[in-house]
């Protein structure tokens, strides 16, 4: 199992599938000789040519729509969004077209399309280039949403996304691109919809995904020094979401915390909370919910402001500790 960066793992999945399946191709802004704004497609054009690694004009609505059209005649396009924020320029194509075509035409068509690109803050790219918008898309029936935290997952889940007959949003956190890990270079895709317990614990369940998995795990280590033992669930895929895994965990720990980078208000944490509150885990809940999220602001630029926007290891650890101290002693 070679070690590689998250960016290389994403590339590896694309190259694997392109070598194997002539229907697969990628298009996007500056993905050819430039190698992509974050270098994810670096070198791919040399291997697969300009036709299958296709530079596009700056026209997100056009290229996402073109991805849909290509899928409708049997191709398997991957469209790179240079920053995932730019999906707004293609919102109609993503939501009114790609997501609905299968259902709306009575099952006569399917749109096998991957939209992938960098999400999240932490690079000083400011309000229009740093968003975490997954909550919008998990609210859209017909889309799948995948946000892996580790290189191996990125590769295996991207293989599954490319092979999926439905449109899949695949969000890569910018700060994960350089993270390294062992990656299985096989043909085996990882099924969408399975979460994973990254750490077992008994005091609380902390549900998280993407970059925040790493921060929560670091925070859990800090907490462990003070005798707190939290369970950490990495969702990996948000649609479909592994609700049974969370319910089961909360039944054991009795406490639910959720951590995501996206703006708290209306973030995916709300849906998770509601699902648990609706479930049989309700009777096991011993403490109020804790959400640790991005601030309710656009992402600010200046380093101290941006750092305050994002949940940091310290903020996560402190929030959890305050909460656990109050709730575990009380109950």
């Amino acid at each position, binding site marked *: 199992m070679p070690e590689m960066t998250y960016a290389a793992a994403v590339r590896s999945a694309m190259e694997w599938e392109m070598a194997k399946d002539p229907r697969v191709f990628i298009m996007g802004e500056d993905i050819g000789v430039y190698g992509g704004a974050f270098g994810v497609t670096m070198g791919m054009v040399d291997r697969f040519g300009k036709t299958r690694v296709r530079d596009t004009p700056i026209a997100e609505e056009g290229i996402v729509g073109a991805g849909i059209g*290509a899928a409708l005649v049997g*191709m398997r396009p991957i469209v790179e969004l240079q920053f995932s924020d730019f999906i707004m320029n293609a919102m109609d194509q993503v939501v009114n077209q790609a997501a609905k075509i299968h259902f709306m035409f009575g099952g*006569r068509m399917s749109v096998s399309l991957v939209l992938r690109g960098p999400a999240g803050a932490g690079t000083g790219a400011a309000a229009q280039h740093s968003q975490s918008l997954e909550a919008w898309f998990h609210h859209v029936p017909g889309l799948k949403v995948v946000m892996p935290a580790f290189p191996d997952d990125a590769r295996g889940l991207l293989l599954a996304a490319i092979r999926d007959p439905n449109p899949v949003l695949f969000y890569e956190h910018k700060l994960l691109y350089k993270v390294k890990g062992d990656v299985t270079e096989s043909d085996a895709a990882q099924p969408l919809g399975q979460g994973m317990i990254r750490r077992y614990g008994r005091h609380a369940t902390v549900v998280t995904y993407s970059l925040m998995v790493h921060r929560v795990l670091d925070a859990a280590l800090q907490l462990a020094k003070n005798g707190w033992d939290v369970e950490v669930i990495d969702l990996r895929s948000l649609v479909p979401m592994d609700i049974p895994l969370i319910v089961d965990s909360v039944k054991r720990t009795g406490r639910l915390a959720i951590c995501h980078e996206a703006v708290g208000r209306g973030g995916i944490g709300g849906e998770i909370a509601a699902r648990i509150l609706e479930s049989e885990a309700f009777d096991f809940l011993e403490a109020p919910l804790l959400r640790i999220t991005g601030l309710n602001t656009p992402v600010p630029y200046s380093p101290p402001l941006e750092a305050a926007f994002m949940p940091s290891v310290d903020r996560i650890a402190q929030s959890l500790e305050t909460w656990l101290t109050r709730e575990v002693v009380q109950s």
Partner: protein
Amino acid sequence: MTRSLIESQPKLSMIDQSLEWFRTMCRIRRFDETIDELFAQGKVHGTTHLYIGEEAVATGAIATLKPGDVITSTHRGHGHNIALGGDIRAMMAELLGRSSGYCHGVGGSMHIADQALGNLGANGIVGAGLPIAVGAALGFQMRQEPHLVLAFAGDGALNEGAFHEAANLAAIWHLPVVFVVENNQYGMSGSVKEMFAIGHLADRAVGYGIPATMVDGMDIFSVWEAASQATQEVRNGHGPRLIEAVTYRYKGHSKSDANRYRTREEIQQWRQRDPLDHVRQYLEDQGVEAAALDRIRHEEIQAVAQALEFAEASPWPDASTLEEAVYAPEEVDHA
């Protein structure tokens, strides 16, 4: 890759071909007249956009397609699907929301499309089919298949960003797509005179480097000729083309239109140049008997009546499986 009912042209004489067209146009007209009546009677749900008056455009343009070619359609899509050879029973059933409809009642008027015939979709969103058309053309080009895409758009759609981005992609990649602009003078109530600062919509194509022509959309021979030339050029690898077909919508934009933005006289004037009358006149001039033409018309009236009977006799769909229908369990056959 697809079963297609589109016949290639050469084997038909001009008279035979015109008879076919006349039949298709009668079918389109009668179909939409029937829908109009159903709405007036409150028998249909939702809204609809009738193609009455514009029959020559779809019929003439689609007549130039070959097996394997595809189209993208619009909110005003019944005519496109019928010209393609679509099943009017499944169309009528869809409009009545029945399980035997094209979309099993899920889609309705704006989402009728026979994908097996190469219709990649009617579309409720103005302009949204155009980038999709371009993507289909890209797929054909990448696979080096000889097919092309006919992308229908209204005049109003030309002011959407989607048109712009699609046109430019088609141009720079030399894609096999013909944009057919149905300039029926209005986007809902917005007149082309007020919504464009150019005299001819075809001139907009200049800004992308796409050759364009303007034709009389009430005259199927002109439409057919322009489309034949455009599709031929596209097939020869010369890249995209745009056709502005100047036409007129007789009925209101959708079911709730009081026609406050245009005059009765204007409507009357355009009706003088009815596209069905035009082809009929041609056929009579060629010696085809009026009775033969009437027979065709009546056969189509009959066919539409039967489609309506079929639809009305069809069961309502079952809501219990809706949530299972959202995601494709596996890839669907492609156009």
